[in-house]
């Protein structure tokens, strides 16, 4: 829960609400990216960016190498697949 998981922003779903689609290990879901937007940045500027995602919120920009490193760490801790599964399942309304 606390380590977060790296993902790549692949699409914008609602720019006023700062929502985007992120791809985490092939799982795509909507997350909030308000915390990683720079002062003069638009949501669209973030497409392609790697971010660290905590419970549905991008909390930090990271570079691709950091992303790879963190994914490997989570994999070795046995948390990567579980996190991706939870992301996919969430709660279906």
């Amino acid at each position, binding site marked *: *829960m*606390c*380590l*977060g998981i790296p993902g790549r922003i692949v699409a914008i779903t609602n720019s006023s*609400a700062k929502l985007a689609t992120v791809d985490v290990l092939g799982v795509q*879901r*909507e*997350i*909030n990216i*308000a*915390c990683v*937007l720079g002062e003069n940045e638009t949501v669209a500027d973030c497409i392609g960016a790697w971010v*660290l995602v*905590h*419970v*549905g*919120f991008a*909390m*930090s920009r*990271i570079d*691709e*190498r*950091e992303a*790879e*490193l*963190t994914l*490997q*760490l989570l994999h*070795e*801790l*046995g*948390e990567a697949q579980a996190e991706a599964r*939870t*992301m996919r*399942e*969430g*709660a279906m*309304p």
Partner: protein
Amino acid sequence: MTQSGMKFVDEFRDPHAARVLLRELELSIERLGATPGKPLQIMEVCGGHTHAIFRYALKDLVPPALEFVHGPGCPVCVLPMGRVDDCVAIARRPEVIFTTFGDAMRVPGSQMSLLQARAEGADVRMVYSPLDALALAEANPTREVVFFGLGFETTMPSTALTVLDAERRGIRNFSLFCNHITIVPTIKAILDSPGMGIHGFLGPGHVAMVIGTAPFEFIANEYKRPLVVAGFEPIDILHSLLMVLRQLEAGEAKIENQYARLVDPDGNRVALEAITRVFELREFFEWRGLGSIDHSGVRMRAAYARFDAEKKFAIPNVRIADPKSCQCGEVLKGAIKPFQCKVFGRACTPQTPLGALMVSSEGACAAYYQYARRSHIETAA
């Protein structure tokens, strides 16, 4: 720069670099005069670090005169029984859909866990994000959706922003049962506890990513203990340990940032603004094993009362003492090791947790149980 990702990973996993760091640690410990009988105690505050320390067997790799004390940094682990009972009471209301992170489902209450409450008919659902809970509220306008918010400053922004989103979208059947806790007063309580023998700290990387490094300054200024904000790679942890020891050797106490590639010393502005808007400090908050700690939790401000489950529902709010056989408090303070608890591995296992430290893989007891047993099996094989 066309350095491939793989190469970078290798740098961080470089056994040579690890060996150099371990050798430096050994020399530093020698100079500091620590011995296995009188070890240097370094507390890792964050449960994520605890997990990594076990996974990579760092505690067996570092010199025996260096001892990790596993801190209270697993938010699920420190949840008191009374709060779980409150969750169960809310979840059992027929109009309520109670949503929670999966980790919290198995934490024992005085009567039952949320998982057991669900088996008995309560509508408890596991979500990945508070955003999922808000979506559930929107999709079920005749129900009351309650999100069980827990965690340190790492998850606080997510619930604060979700509440602000609920307000913006006028969703009225959503509320937050706020059990967020804040790490700084808790470190202070540990520093104030009698017999405290901790020489230095590895600081929680992702909490610092949100709040910055300034809130930790008092540890250096008032308590003269070094703290190094650390990343989660094995090399990060070893490097941070060495930074702590170097300070001790120089007779210094400073807050340093080993995880600068992610942690801005000022923290995250948007996240901090959302937190301050929605939450205020409670006078005190109850922790499992540690008792009541002043200003260690947050509640929702009056302006957001209509999204506050504590205001919306009658909450029993009964304080339940930890079971007598549990020694979670002593483990959290570093006074005993998990396997020294009388019920460890007997009455208390990850399948049947008595204490919360056995529930999540970030809890010290579950980590000992999982990894100590595994290494035992590996050596036997």
